[in-house]
């Protein structure tokens, strides 16, 4: 068997460890830091060429710190690879919609139940029909929540909190979400009318593409850490759980598109050049950068709200089909986490604007007031 590394790039890819690979700065003109890919040898060799090109493009962006990173599931994306992570200095670095993704705060949430496959199987068709009825998907889907512009403004600023206040969820749901389902201190006035018009009727809708609502079964042989799983309410024995993958829908896309346009123009003024149009960016501290950050957070809050309204509808569907309340069915939220977002985080290096695209944060237990710590379930 040959030990020769066969990757989809002409660039040198050096082994740092069995799971970390590095493309040195010498491999592309303009790289300010090396690029690092977390992958086994087999995974690395199966990555598409876009990953290597895109992660090294990210390494050229102003203010990047330490490395441009790509996670093991990295694949070609718009601007950043999906699975791309990069941190930029909050004082002299940039913010880029390409590092967040068009679907701002696209994320996953998992809802547990006390039901088993045996409980659900006889009612599956009715349950699916009810879920399809209550959670619209596909082209032109609009949700049951009808909002005035003023009220939609509150969704943008209060996220999932707005939902719980309106009865679309339980207060304890909020502690099981990244940021408690609400990024505070956002300014909704920076969101364009176009974005609002696209988003105002979409609360509680899934969209299409790779977004989904799945009723899943947890088998015992798929639980790798019984104690942790139990603490999260996952007990196995053919347990039924519901997973949701969606984000800020057309609203978030419009926010990203609006600010890509703004940044394409302002980059000249700031003397920034990028390797790919979809890496258009602005200095984080610039007026344009701050406005995008606020608009992005409005979209992130709207995505938290979207998944919360969907959760409410899922609970209603189950309650209707099984003739018991969602509480009685044990339909607790396990966790909700974003995988398309930029956040300001404090590290030993200082304040950094961490872009995660198709990647989630998972801090260790010593990291105090983090989303993971706040959302952690107790046994």
């Amino acid at each position: 068997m040959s030990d020769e590394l066969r990757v989809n790039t002409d660039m040198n890819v050096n082994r740092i460890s069995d799971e970390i690979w590095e493309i040195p700065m010498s491999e592309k003109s303009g790289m300010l830091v090396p690029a690092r890919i977390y992958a086994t040898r087999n995974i690395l060799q199966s990555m598409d060429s876009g990953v290597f090109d895109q992660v090294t493009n990210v390494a050229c962006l102003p203010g990047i710190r330490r490395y441009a990173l790509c996670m093991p599931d990295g694949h070609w994306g718009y601007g950043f690879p999906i699975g791309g992570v990069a941190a930029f200095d909050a004082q002299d670095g940039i913010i880029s919609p390409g590092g967040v993704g068009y679907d701002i705060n696209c994320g996953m949430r998992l809802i547990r139940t006390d039901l088993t496959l045996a409980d659900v199987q006889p009612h599956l068709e009715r349950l699916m029909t009810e879920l399809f009825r209550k959670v619209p998907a596909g082209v032109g889907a609009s949700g049951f929540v009808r909002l005035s512009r003023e009220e939609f403004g509150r969704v943008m600023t209060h996220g999932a909190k707005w939902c719980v206040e309106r009865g679309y969820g339980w207060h304890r749901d909020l502690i099981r979400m990244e940021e408690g389902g609400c990024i505070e201190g956002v300014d909704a006035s920076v969101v364009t009318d176009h974005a609002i018009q696209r988003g105002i009727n979409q609360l509680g809708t899934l969209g299409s593409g790779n977004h989904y609502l799945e009723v899943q079964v947890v088998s015992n042989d798929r639980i790798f850490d019984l104690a942790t799983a139990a603490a999260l309410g996952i007990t196995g024995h053919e347990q039924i759980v519901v997973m949701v993958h969606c984000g800020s829908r057309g609203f978030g896309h419009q926010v990203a598109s609006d600010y890509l346009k703004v940044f394409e123009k302002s980059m000249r003024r700031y003397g920034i050049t990028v390797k790919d149009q979809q890496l258009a960016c602005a200095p984080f501290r610039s007026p344009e950068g701050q406005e995008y950050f606020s608009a992005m957070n409005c979209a992130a809050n709207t995505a938290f709200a979207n998944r919360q309204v969907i959760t409410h509808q899922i609970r209603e569907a189950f309650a209707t089909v099984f003739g018991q309340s969602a509480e009685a069915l044990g339909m607790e939220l396990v966790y909700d986490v974003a995988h398309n977002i930029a956040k300001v985080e404090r590290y030993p290096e200082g304040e950094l604007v961490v872009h995660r695209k198709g990647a989630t944060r998972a801090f260790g237990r010593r990291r105090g007031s983090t989303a993971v710590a706040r959302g952690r379930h107790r046994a």
Partner: protein
Amino acid sequence: MAWTIRWPEHIAMADAAFEVDASSAEEVVRGATEALLQSLANPVTVSGGWERSIERTDVDLSALLFDWLSEIVYWKDAAGVVFREAPLTLVHEGDVWLLRARLIGAPVDYQTQELHADVKGVTKHLYHVSQDAGQWKALVVLDV
């Protein structure tokens, strides 16, 4: 119809892409418009009733087409409609391209329309409009 549309599957894994070849700038815009309408729904299953007249100008045809396609996606969400057709004219006056179009469609109806993907937007990934030896080409990647 003086354009051809291809749907390369290798370009955008979870999304959609189309390439248009046409004999003129106007036809390449018509072809790209048709491809986008088809991405959303089968146009022949969509009745009329909803209509917008849209006019756009730009010195850059590539930017003009991008904005026009983005506007179609915008109306899909803002008005909750899909489209039957979008008759248009494109003229080049001096340095400026002028697009005049009518966007014709109907509110989304799951019972009567053959609905396709819920396109979120037009992307700039690999996006280009070009002319070579009298033949026009456009490549568009849609985020779904």
